[in-house]
């Protein structure tokens, strides 16, 4: 069976490659055939070059693609090989200044906050339609830059991106303040006004979806934006921002600055003319962002940070479903999800069976070129993350957790890591405490509900949790007891546009998605005036 899979992969790889060649993209056979190994099967393959042109590599400021003020660029790399995909303009403080100034002007003088909400919603809808038409190219670009499975990008993430913008378009004309009863003869109404220039810093794990989570609500509310993409994944944001302008977005409303955190990111977070900051990324960086906001103009900050989310499986759960979902909850997107179910708590009665099945499932996980249809797992995003993940695996072994499978680099090139499962993990081990952000599942044993609640909450994080049980009582008790922003009961990673998402504790501040996300981008103004002879109060 393994042999058959290899040959299919190979033939598909070659046919796709020749298609790429005929489209004229640089395609070097000299890149070499490399050897990927899963221990049981050896795969000979070359990375597929996607037939997509990279047309947008400059900063997008005030509706124009421009070089950085310094003229500098940085390379964005293919995580499959570590090779350069493109050189991208490297924004720094001066570029942030220019972008903020454009956004400021677009907010203070431009048509965007002044046009009718219906018109704004029409532009957002037109944009979503354009993205839908360019779905395949965008998914290819996303996979190329990020390393995530192409099928995942194409059939899940880009359609979700479109749905998110449709969703937020629908909010634009339904932003309601309240009229408020007063204690005396006063008329009180509350206006929800756009907050102004929003600074947004997004991570590399879901470049398009994170763009949508941030940009969607900010634009629906009538704000203007300076968005800094992650230096690992600058490409798709530039592409979709171009489409947004084609859809009729006025210049200056959405500015994209590619670059690094300590330069562009820090300049945005500490800018005196940015009215709001939203950041998704690591808890460490989140602290810096909040501090910069505090030191500069006290801009309100939304943070969506790290997690060490428990996935709790009770003895009454459907074990096969639980195994599959626990696997998905951790390994999805190469384990690079802030809400990954990275502490799998299993009830002692089903522990042994669960371990056996979880290990078998991890061994079946297909790793390889994310452009191949049957591949479930691509490479980690970059060398730093790759090394970090391997370091944590070593720590797990050193602390005497049982390595059930995996534990090493997958193949010899790029940043692939074998799907790794640890059992007998104890709460005080580093792999049970730190966010690994890689394909490393830690399985822990528990006895009763009170114990697992206490242990699940014994973390500085509080982003999400999974609960697997067929008991209504357990489901209700645990959902209320867990200190986490999202609890998935008998499911995981359900990310509808309407469901708010965000963290307790050091997993962050504020909520994204859903009606709750609008509050991040609105100022609340109470308007009060006396009433003479009111007919009622």
């Amino acid at each position, binding site marked *: 069976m393994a042999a058959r899979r290899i040959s299919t992969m190979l033939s598909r790889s070659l046919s796709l490659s020749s298609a790429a060649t005929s489209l004229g993209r640089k395609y070097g056979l000299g890149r070499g055939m490399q050897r990927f190994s899963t221990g049981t099967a050896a795969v000979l393959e070359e990375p597929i070059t996607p037939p997509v042109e990279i047309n947008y590599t400059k900063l997008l400021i005030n509706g124009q693609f421009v070089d950085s003020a310094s003229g500098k660029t940085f390379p964005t790399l293919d995580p499959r090989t570590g090779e350069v995909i493109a050189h991208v303009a490297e924004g720094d403080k001066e570029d942030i200044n220019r972008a903020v100034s454009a956004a400021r002007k677009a907010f203070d003088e431009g048509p965007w906050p002044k046009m009718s909400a219906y018109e704004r919603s029409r532009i957002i809808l037109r944009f979503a339609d354009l993205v839908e038409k360019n779905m395949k190219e965008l998914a290819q670009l996303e996979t190329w830059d990020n390393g995530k499975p192409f099928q995942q990008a194409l059939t899940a993430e880009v359609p979700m991106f479109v749905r998110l913008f*449709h969703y937020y378009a629908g909010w634009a004309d*339904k932003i*309601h303040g309240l009229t408020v009863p007063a204690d005396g003869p006063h008329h009180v109404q509350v206006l929800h006004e756009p907050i102004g220039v929003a600074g947004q810093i997004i991570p590399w794990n879901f470049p398009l979806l994170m763009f949508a989570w941030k940009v969607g609500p900010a634009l629906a509310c009538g704000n203007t934006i300076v968005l800094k993409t992650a230096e690992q994944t600058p490409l798709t944001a530039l592409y979709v921002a171009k489409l947004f302008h084609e859809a009729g977005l006025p210049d200056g409303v959405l500015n994209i600055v590619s670059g690094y955190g300590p330069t562009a990111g820090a300049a945005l977070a500490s800018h005196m003319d940015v009215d709001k900051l939203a950041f998704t990324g690591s808890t460490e960086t989140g602290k810096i962002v909040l501090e910069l906001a505090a030191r500069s103009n006290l801009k309100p900050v939304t943070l969506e940070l790290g997690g060490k989310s428990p996935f709790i499986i009770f003895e009454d759960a459907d074990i096969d479903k639980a195994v599959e979902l626990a696997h998905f909850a951790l390994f999805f997107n190469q384990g690079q999800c802030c809400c990954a179910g990275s502490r799998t708590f299993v009830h002692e009665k089903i522990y042994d069976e669960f371990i056996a099945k979880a290990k078998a499932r991890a061994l079946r996980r297909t790793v390889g070129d994310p452009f191949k249809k049957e591949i479930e797992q691509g490479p980690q995003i970059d060398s730093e993350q790759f090394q970090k993940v391997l370091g944590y695996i070593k720590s797990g072994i050193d602390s005497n957790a049982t390595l059930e499978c995996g534990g090493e680099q997958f193949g010899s090139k790029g940043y692939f890591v074998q799907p790794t499962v640890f059992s007998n993990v104890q709460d005080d081990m580093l792999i049970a405490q730190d966010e690994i952000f890689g394909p490393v599942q830690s399985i822990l044993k528990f006895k009763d509900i009170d114990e697992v609640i206490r242990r699940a909450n014994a973390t500085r994080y509080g982003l999400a949790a999974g609960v697997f049980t067929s008991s209504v009582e357990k489901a209700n008790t645990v959902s209320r007891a867990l200190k986490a922003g999202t609890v998935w009961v008998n499911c995981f990673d359900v990310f509808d546009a309407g469901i708010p998402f965000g963290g307790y504790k050091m997993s962050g501040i504020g909520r994204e998605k859903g009606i709750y996300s609008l509050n991040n981008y609105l100022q609340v103004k109470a308007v009060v005036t006396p009433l003479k002879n009111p*007919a009622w109060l």
Partner: protein
Amino acid sequence: MSGERNGHVEESTIMIPKVKFTKLFINGEFVDSVSGKTFETIDPRSEEVIGKVAEGDKEDVDLAVKAAREAFDHGPWPRLPGSERRKIMLKFADLIEQNLEELAALDAMDAANLYLLGKIVMINNGIELFRYYAGAADKIHGETLKMSKQLHGYTLLEPIGVVGHIIPWNFPTQMFSMKVAPALAAGCTMVVKPAEQTPLSALFYAHLAKLAGVPDGVLNVVTGYGSTVGAAISSHMDIDMVSFTGSTVTGHRIMQAAATSNLKQVCLELGGKSPFIVFDDVDVDKTAPLALNACLYNQGQICVAGTRVFVQEGIYDKFVGRLLEQLKTWVVGDPFDPNVNQGPQVDKKQYEKVLSYIEVGKKEGATLLTGGKPLDRKGYFIEPTIFTDVTDDMTIAKDEIFGPVMSIMKFKSMEEVIKRANNTKYGLAAGIMTNNLNTANTVSRSIRAGTIWINCYFAFDNDAPVGGYKMSGFGKDMGINALHKYLHVKSIATPIYNSPWL
């Protein structure tokens, strides 16, 4: 063309569309009525027959309800995620946009809506409403509750089921959209009865809905008369709600039929006799044209028309003078002519009713300032008519005339005008013209009406609910309130144990 005034109009250059859909639309198909009968729909400009339309009756309503019931109980529509319903509704809106001119022409020839206004306002309003409610389809939020004991509680908002919509002839497109769009967004299925005077565009919309992907049985259209089709809908045992816009007299009947059948929920948007109150401090040059439009728009055939114009004594003479001046620019004629402000009344019955009210006004002692006569041409055209010296007890100050007839009354103080403005069985809308903040706030809270426009009129918006107080009806159209009238609230509770908070 620009030189033409009052009455005479050049041959229209507009392409009058061929009428494509004249049958009932049931379960996704255009079908003849069970009886095989048809009725004529008339062009109010010429009194000529536009076409023959299938005449539905009780049996046809039964078939349509059966289809809607099946589509609700077993079909995909209420089971689709809101985001999927949104997608189909957005497509529907796009299709309407692609057929905008043809739809505007259908309403112009069937309802005598001004063609130009149809093109730039009315059909667009319909499109906007579909887009607005498309955006609401995935934002139907119940609540989790704060229970007083160890209980977990929450509410679910569920689609109410099969809805009967009975819509009037004055704005065929807007009324259709106002009723159908929120019900679709909520996940309901429905039977729509358009007015017998204006059946054409509703059938066209049904065709477009099917093209957009609205599943069969979700939207059914049964054309016909109120006494047959309308009565069958309101008394049907398998319809969960009836939503009606029309006269107060018919509203009584519908509610009665609902009461004696299955106690279906009822929403009524009925008549009005809305006050348009002009205080001394206003700019007369701006306000007089607004008052004229508030009363004469759509030939006066609009339920929220500002038909009782209360003018404060200090500017009374100036205001009346300015009204007359403005009226000189008012053109009555073919609704397809872009220079025309006012077309014919919708049918002979309405035309005769309006003329008889004018006679009553004269007889009861009001001063006929201008107008009062039919136009000397074919079609149901009536001169814009203004009465002064109208007293509150006159018939023309009390009844809804639904024609181009304005009654002007003089008032002294705010307290007086509040009292007089509220002295009506209706409570649909009101206009308050003042620059005084206190006056605006006090009067807007004092008037017993569902919509108040301050220094504007007809300020309709997708997001702004409209609907009546008193005998103008109950339940709202437009806005999120309208969505909620098509939703049931279900409250759910279950015990919880050891919750760390309550």
